[in-house]
């Protein structure tokens, strides 16, 4: 239902009003915040309820459940199932494998890693994309050709496969590239891989928008007043990209988390002793027949996070941009460039 545009309300407050009216999106925003609280509470739960860390092994231990002694890991190597509060919160969701680590604690700490990588990679990719998009769209000419062609090449690579190869190389040998040096288990490895391979998703639409904004009167006015290119790009054009950037950033977090989970699942992402929801699925799949929850729970967490981000991102787009300028499908405009891939689809 269209709102009457009122004179005293700015575009941001109108957008906020439109967003707040979207109950579904609000509910899923709440869900996303709950997930954040859940992972932030990890140390609290680990220290005060479960009394164990995410990597502490309890192979030959027993716990008292409602006055009854139970093995954490049975003689056959079967981990204990969910105990809920039977053991005072210990092994709330059971143990993760024959190593007898607390699944609930691991789920909370693993979520920290997954979200940290997802958000950092999305931030990095968005920042890179803004700079590249501004340079390409504003300067045009050879700068534009160079950037646009490079993005096209990344776009047409089988990114997941190459990400996998890069991931495994870094996981084994670490990274040494000029001043940049990373150890083999660093979380920066997956973050860098994901952000570099996902830059084109945001950079392409941003470049297109900068291209059209550069021809607007306010930009010409700024140039006529003697503003430097940097000033025009960052103080005149950049604020007008805000809605596109916000929408794509939200969707990129979801995309990056899926990318991370895929890499980690295959052993090319997060390395021990760190764990993420992706690595937890790898462990869980082995025991799918005995304890299906071990594989399903981390997968479910990924799905809920991705789903809430997708819905919130969609609603933000509707609220910020009711006429659909920044629509995700804008990345799918095939007019002259059929080499487009959808977000979230190409990687996983």
């Amino acid at each position, binding site marked *: 239902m269209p709102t009457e545009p009122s004179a005293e309300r700015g575009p941001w407050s109108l957008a906020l009003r439109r967003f707040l009216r979207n109950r579904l999106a609000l509910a899923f925003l709440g869900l996303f915040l709950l997930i954040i609280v859940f992972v932030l509470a990890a140390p609290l739960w680990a220290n005060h309820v479960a009394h164990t860390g995410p990597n502490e092994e309890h192979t030959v231990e027993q716990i008292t459940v409602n006055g009854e002694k139970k093995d954490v890991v049975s003689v056959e190597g079967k981990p204990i199932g969910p105990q809920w509060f039977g053991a005072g919160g210990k092994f709330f969701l059971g143990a993760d494998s024959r190593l007898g680590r607390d699944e609930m604690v691991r789920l909370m700490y693993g979520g920290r890693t997954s979200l940290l990588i997802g958000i950092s990679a999305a931030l990095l990719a968005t920042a890179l994309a803004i700079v590249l998009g501004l340079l390409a769209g504003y300067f045009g000419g050879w700068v534009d050709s160079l950037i646009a062609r490079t993005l096209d090449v990344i776009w047409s*690579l089988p990114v997941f496969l190459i990400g996998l190869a*890069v991931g495994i*190389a870094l996981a084994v040998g*670490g990274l040494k590239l000029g001043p940049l040096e990373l150890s083999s288990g660093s979380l920066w490895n997956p973050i860098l891989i994901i952000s570099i391979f996902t830059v084109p998703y945001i950079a392409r639409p941003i470049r297109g928008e900068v291209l059209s904004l550069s021809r607007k009167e306010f930009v010409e006015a700024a140039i006529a007043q003697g503003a430097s290119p940097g000033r025009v790009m960052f103080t005149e054009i950049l604020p007008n990209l805000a809605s596109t950037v916000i929408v794509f950033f939200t969707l990129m977090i979801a995309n990056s988390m899926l990318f991370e989970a895929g890499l980690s*699942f295959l052993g090319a992402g997060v390395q021990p002793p760190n764990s993420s929801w992706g690595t937890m699925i790898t462990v869980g799949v082995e025991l799918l027949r005995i304890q299906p929850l071990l*594989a*399903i729970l981390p997968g479910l967490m990924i799905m809920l996070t991705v789903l809430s981000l997708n819905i919130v991102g969609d609603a933000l787009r509707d609220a910020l941009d009711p006429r659909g300028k920044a629509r995700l499908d804008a990345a799918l405009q095939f007019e002259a460039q059929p080499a487009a891939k959808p977000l979230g689809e190409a990687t996983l």
Partner: protein
Amino acid sequence: MARFVVRRLVGMVAVLFAVSVIVFFVFMVVPKQNPAQTLAGKNATPILVKSIEEEWGFDESLPVQYTTMMKKVFTGELTSYKPRLPVSDRIIEGIPATFSLTIGAAIIWLFFGLLLGYLSAIRAGGWLDRILTGVSIAGISLPVFLLAPVLIYFFADKLEIFPNGQYVPFEEDPVEWLKHLILPWVTLAVLSIGFYSRVLRSNMLDVMNEDYVRTARAKGLSERQVMTRHVLRNSLIPVITLFGLDFGATIAGTAIITEVIFSIDGIGNYAAEAVAKFELPPIMGVALYGAFFVVFVNGLVDIAYAYLDPRVRLGESAE
């Protein structure tokens, strides 16, 4: 047209060159460790490291090393370490399983994606549209690493309707081939069904506002004829383009995870195995052959698209 094809072919070669350089760069230049050590794995003996060093010529200059590697790729001499087997043999062996998986899944996702998108678009704004939109958003957010374990647990372990993974070659037993592939197909297809239905829906809604649709209605065509002959047909071209790209990307992406979870012995599983064993040559081989396939499909799609839409071949720079 011929000029466009030539230009695309040159572009394809350029992308493949870029892939090979990136993979080479990643393994030879970026890591801190001696590449021979990396190749040999964590617990390699010095003798193995030495032999690998000689085999790959790590003492040579980088361009020479690159040429040697590419020669091996083209002559099929790329071999894995433990056991020493030609990489190309394993990749060729994996093709039937991987193609059965991806082609089957692609047919399913194309059919259901288009069906749901079409229904959603002709009932835009109605309750059916809302339900289908909800279903497709859920589908888009359903990663294979959740769907696959859930399907295996319920349909293979609990209900025992379908076998638990593995691959049976078609020529051995077509019925078993089908039964073994249904769960993996569904796993791979669900995500794309959601995506395709949304893309088709929004394309159709855009096309519905075109003048020629009004003309079609004005000349008295039935709503059904307008929708199928004019709206659907014109909304399909971008979807088909997308399909070509996705199909390539699936083989080099999602299919790997699906193959691992369902223990399907295809190219993806081979790549995952190599990743687990830290073996470079198979990864390099799969990445290059996989890239070749993706780029080839992308190129075909572009050429088909240019054939269908003259604007593409006339002015590629117009964006």
